[in-house]
């Protein structure tokens, strides 16, 4: 009797799907995920993995999240559920330099709002946005734990204390040159 079968004979797409997933990440991250996948409860490693991915790419892209799901064997709905729940994770690309303006109580009292206004004016963006040239992202943050230096702006890992609106252009220029 005749049989109706898949014409391509390649029903098992497991390896192909895995290879696609690996291609969406760096070899280092793939190795890290494989280590995590060997854990008795891989799903409990999900946040660690997402941290690692965002650490490298600056945000969590669709392709990367799907790849994490396949390699860690955690349902994709769960991966994106976690990624969209935590404020820490970003789904959109961020600028090369992340500027965080502290709007905590101490900084606010010392005039952080004026600094924030100046930053938005100079960059032409609002909080949560990235400049068109992809250089700067602007974030409002709460206390960074250096109230003695208020008002504080953090660019990348560097903390600028005692900020005034007039210091803003010089700082931005420094990073523009660095890029």
């Amino acid at each position: 009797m005749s049989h109706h079968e898949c014409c391509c004979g390649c029903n098992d797409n497991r390896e192909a799907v895995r290879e696609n997933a690996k291609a969406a990440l760096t070899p280092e991250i793939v190795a890290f995920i494989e280590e995590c996948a060997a854990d008795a409860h891989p799903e409990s490693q999900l946040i660690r993995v997402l941290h690692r991915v965002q650490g490298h790419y600056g945000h969590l892209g669709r392709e990367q999240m799907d790849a994490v799901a396949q390699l860690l064997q955690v349902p994709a709905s769960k991966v994106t559920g976690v990624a969209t729940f935590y404020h820490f994770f970003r789904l959109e690309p961020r600028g090369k330099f992340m500027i965080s303006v502290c709007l905590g109580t101490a900084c606010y009292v010392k005039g952080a709002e004026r600094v924030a206004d100046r930053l938005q004016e100079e960059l032409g963006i609002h909080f949560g946005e990235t400049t068109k040239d992809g250089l700067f992202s602007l974030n409002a943050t709460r206390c960074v734990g250096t109230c003695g230096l208020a008002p504080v702006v953090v660019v990348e890992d560097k903390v600028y204390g005692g900020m005034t609106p007039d210091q803003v252009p010089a700082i931005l220029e420094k990073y523009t040159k660095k890029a």
Partner: protein
Amino acid sequence: MSQQQMINLTIDGVPVTVPKGTTIMQAAEQKLGVKIPRLCHHPKLSIQGSCRVCVVEVKGVPFYMASCSVQVWEGMEIQTNSPAIRQARRDILELLLDNHPRACLTCVRDGNCELQNLAYTLGVRERLFDGERKRFPIEKSSVSIVRDAEKCILCGRCVRVCAEVQGVHNLSQQGRGFTTHVAPAHGDKMDDSVCIQCGQCINACPTAAFVGHSDSDRVWKALGDPTKHVVVQTAPAIRATVGEGFGMAPGTPATGKLVTALRRLGFDRVFDTNFTADLTIIEEATEFLNRFKNNDRLPLLTSCSPGWVNFMERFYPELIPNASSCRSPMSMMSSLIKSYYAKKEGIDPKDVFVVAIMPCTAKKFEAQRPEFATPDGGQETDASLTTRELIFMIKSYGIDLAELEDGEFDSPLGASSGAADIFGTTGGVLEAALRMAAEVINGEPPAQMEFVEVRAVEGLRVRELKVNNDLTLRVGVSNGLQNAKKLLDKVVSGEEVFHIIEVMACPGGCIGGGGQPYPPRGYTILDPKLLAKRAKALYTIDLNKDVRSSNHNPAIKALYDEFLGEPGGETAHRLLHTHYQPRLPRGIR
């Protein structure tokens, strides 16, 4: 072993004793018959404790406790209905309602909505907290399931049924705070997701955040079109459940009344999917016996359940070669109606409109598979309606099904054996196949028609069946795909060897399908008591039939003689078989 520790407590002043580990909700229900209001809780799903509707007062505890998730302790004093707790519950419900559309009058679940029922029983008579309400568009990408996140109360029952019962994990809560909503990964459309369209989310939803896609308007239109010859077929499981929509006790067979109702609705012919269930058995048993003889691609996996077929294509594509190539009874019937029947009646197949009444939402997807397209680009099954949609149509017409006289299916595609009826319950397809296979192998019909060993009231069953002194078949029966996974993983790894595995996507088989009526009063979805009653209806119909084996259905024999030729032959293959393909995204299992 030590005896189970017992806990003494009082509920509403009544002293009761229950085993350690019992929740407050369970204790109140078991000992006092008090059903504490609930939304997110379901006895067959994990505890979530998110809706807070089931709160009770516990003496000495300074806050209200969720009775679904708190286990009783020695000396506990509980109030389930004090004025304060009644007020708190009503406030909690009002807050849920005020983030919910005021659309009951136009909602498809009007009258059988748990949220609406609760608003009534808790005495919500006015809306006090009129504030901002979440806004989401209705998502209609899927041919079977409509998602309306505005009606969602975030109870998570759909998320849990999709993960814990079906093992699909397509749904999860996305986002946080006010924008939290239930959706597939990335907030994608259902159509772009790993959804297998089983419809259990519809069954599990207490409101109308998930509802079936309605095709009844297309059917009304066809019925009103004088140029169309409208033919209907009804699946085995419908006769066991349709009566529930008209106040008949669960488990009351309603085959004859169903036929009369369909005729009243205006269908030109009323055929029985049971006929092609018998045909499926002939083809599938032939396929199995061939594979068995050649020790080729065993175990044979049944393929009648379209939710399972979707699951296989996304989650277990490597098992595609094992799946039976037989089309489902629905698709066999539609294929025969538009070839054999149309020719016999001298009607142009283009003028024939085939409606299938199915217990299933995934059948809507099956109906529009390109494999089942007609040469003119239409579908062999023009419309697939769920039991719920049929109940709506009958009511909408003004007919009370319970009061109808019995009718008879039309011939030639209406006669069936008892083996076909039991297709509608888990284990039924396998039992039907065994009735025929045993006869072919042994040369005489089995002494006992009932293969009770495969009647799986639970979700998973593995049995060794002695067919004769030399031959024992190892068979598996599963319903609910989380159960199927357990067998399929063993097949993939080669850890265990089976000859046949019957897989039904829905818990209990088609009687628990995603298109079946919402449970009547006193029952919940996934309720073993309800499923057992529905199954009994089918076993009773089977028992009362003269012909109980598919290969003894005279109408089937006539069809092979007149039209199909040999089982598994060329015509049979063209009209009754199909193929499958892997689909992406691949599911995580």
